[in-house]
């Protein structure tokens, strides 16, 4: 993907946050980017697009984290959000079995649309509520492994596991970008759409913002 560079270049990665409502997506990024949790004294204007600059083994990384609208009525818009993303953080609430099922649906959809180019993280949030756990650790971890994703546990409330998961994700995205860069160096020809991230033509009808097929006009 064009977003990731090599050598002395700065890497720019786009990461989408997916998951059912109330699993703690917003809490997770606000904790990560601004170290805040349920902050009454708000100085943050918005928590839907946040960035973080990292330095990983001497390489600069700009992380852009895209919050997505999680409500069911916006589900069909998913592909517009996650196209061209380098990574996805799929969040569920360990006390809510349903939210884990939702994650499975997202994984299917992402793999179908973006293949293996995208690095997936499955995150079981709210481990401070472990006594109400409804998703077993073994089930979640073995599922993640079966789909080539990494599994993490976190608590936005206690600030646990969050730094680790994003750091890990960044390292994996860098590896993916470097592998791609090597391919490029070997003279492997690329399709126009992978040369630059913006896709103009989209054969999945629901993915095009401009798809006029359903408009009454």
């Amino acid at each position: 993907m064009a977003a990731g560079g090599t050598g002395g270049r700065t890497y720019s990665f786009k990461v989408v946050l997916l998951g059912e409502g109330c699993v703690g997506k917003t809490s997770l990024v606000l904790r990560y980017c601004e170290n805040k949790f349920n902050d009454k004294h708000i100085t943050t204007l918005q928590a839907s697009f946040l960035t973080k600059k990292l330095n990983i083994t001497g390489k600069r990384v700009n992380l852009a984290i895209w919050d997505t609208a999680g409500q069911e009525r916006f589900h069909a818009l998913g592909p517009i959000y996650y196209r061209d993303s380098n990574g996805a953080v799929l969040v569920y609430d360990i006390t809510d079995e349903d939210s884990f099922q939702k994650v499975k649906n997202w994984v299917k959809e992402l793999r179908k649309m973006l293949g293996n180019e995208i690095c997936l993280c499955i995150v079981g949030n709210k481990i401070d509520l472990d006594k109400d756990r409804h998703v077993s650790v073994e089930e979640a971890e073995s599922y993640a492994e079966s789909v080539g994703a990494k599994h993490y546990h976190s608590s936005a409330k206690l600030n646990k596991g969050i730094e680790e998961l994003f750091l890990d994700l960044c390292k994996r995205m860098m590896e993916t970008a470097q592998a791609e860069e090597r391919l490029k160096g070997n003279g492997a020809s690329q399709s126009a759409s992978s040369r630059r991230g913006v896709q103009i033509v989209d054969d999945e009808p629901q993915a095009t913002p401009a798809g006029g097929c359903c408009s009454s006009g």
Partner: protein
Amino acid sequence: MTSQRRGIHLDQSELLCKKGCGFYGNTGWQGLCSKCWREENQREKQKQIQEDWALAERLQKEEEEAYASRHQKAQSQPTITPFSKFEERKTKEKSSKVNTVTKFFTPSTKTPSKKDAFEAQSSPSPSSSTSRHSSVDSDHATREFIDFLKPLKSGREIFKQCRAFTESMVYKRDMAADELSECVQDFYQNLSDRLHTQFKGSSEHVESVMDEVEKYMMTRLYKEVFCPETTDDEKKDLAIQKRIRALHWVTIEMLCVPVDEEIAEVSDSVVKAITDVIEMDSKCVPKEKLACITLCSKHIFNAIKITKKEAASADDFLPTLIYIVLKANPPRLQSNIQYITRFSNPSRLMTGEDGYYFTNLCCAVAFIEKLDGQSLNLSAEEFELYMSGQASPQRPQSTGAASCSPGSSALGQVHERLDLLAGLGERQEQVMEKARQLESDLIDWSDDVEQKVQSVLESFPPETQNPTATTASGTTPAASSAIDSDNVENEHLPPPLQPQVFAG
């Protein structure tokens, strides 16, 4: 169909093509649409291309002279390999796909009324002044670009390449939009790769050059590649415009928009957000159009933050943006989205903040296109009723003749307004009644006061009226009379009391 066309003319006639073909006009094309403009100006266009060449030659010469004088003893410059080979390939591919659907679509809607046709004929020929205007614009863009590039080591190379590429694009206007986009994107990509090597990975530096490249190229190419004839962008513009109109009844509650417009600062932000998203159409450069969307989003965040007292998440933002788009009905929405997608610097769209808001705008449009009862928490029947205008959410479903006539949406509105007017009339009556009451109350009151004063005066004889005067006996009479002498109303006062000596 005709009533609907008329509706558009009434509301936004200034946006439509002066030839009355039903498409949108553009001030840059003297109010004509792309199609009519092209027909009107085929010859002018040729002339302008020649002028552009001449200008470019002139600028290049100036530029070369400037370089020659500055770099006389300078070292050899790192060169950028020309793009000519790539150019050839692109040119061969050109004009393979011309969208015939558009060709069928366009003439059918183009039946100007007699009046419109007459106006178009009687108006002075627009060509000469416009061509001068637009070449002034590009001239300006070129100058700014050169000024920006001057301090750069490879500035001249960059300018040469961009100029050559831009000129080659002018001749490719029959090429399909995807291919035009592909050309421009490939050009961006190649140039930025070279710049990366040259600036040794300083991304900010590369980005700043790429911003200027985009600005220069897109200012010059705007009228060629915005809403090109080979696409159905215009058709989509009209479709979404009509769709948004049909959804006029959608309320804040249905969309679950976390914004309370009763708060003055919130409604202020809402108005600003609407203005910003409309403003997008007036910009030429993708970056500037994106800036309008970003500004709009910031105002939305402000409105949410004041209402909810917490930072907006995507679940707050997207519904609000949808609401703003429904309220604004921004002109040429699809054309603008397509143009940005095709010609913006890709890194901005992919990871930048602008890209996030732009993506949300795309989502909002997709949502509006597909929206049904379920997405608004309405039953399918309710949704149908509202869409067909047979009922509106605030009013109970209307009955009788109004509900089955095709114009019932407008009728419904008229009824609503009439109700409002009747209500207003009633209230005005009430206000008048109260005012009359107040008037008579005031008269009664002043009479009352007068009577009371009279009775007080009668029951207290003047001698005993001013008991404090006795205490003043010790003060100097000269001083008090000096003050009194200034008083014009002395005559109306009772005569001054004489000091009395009390025995003992």
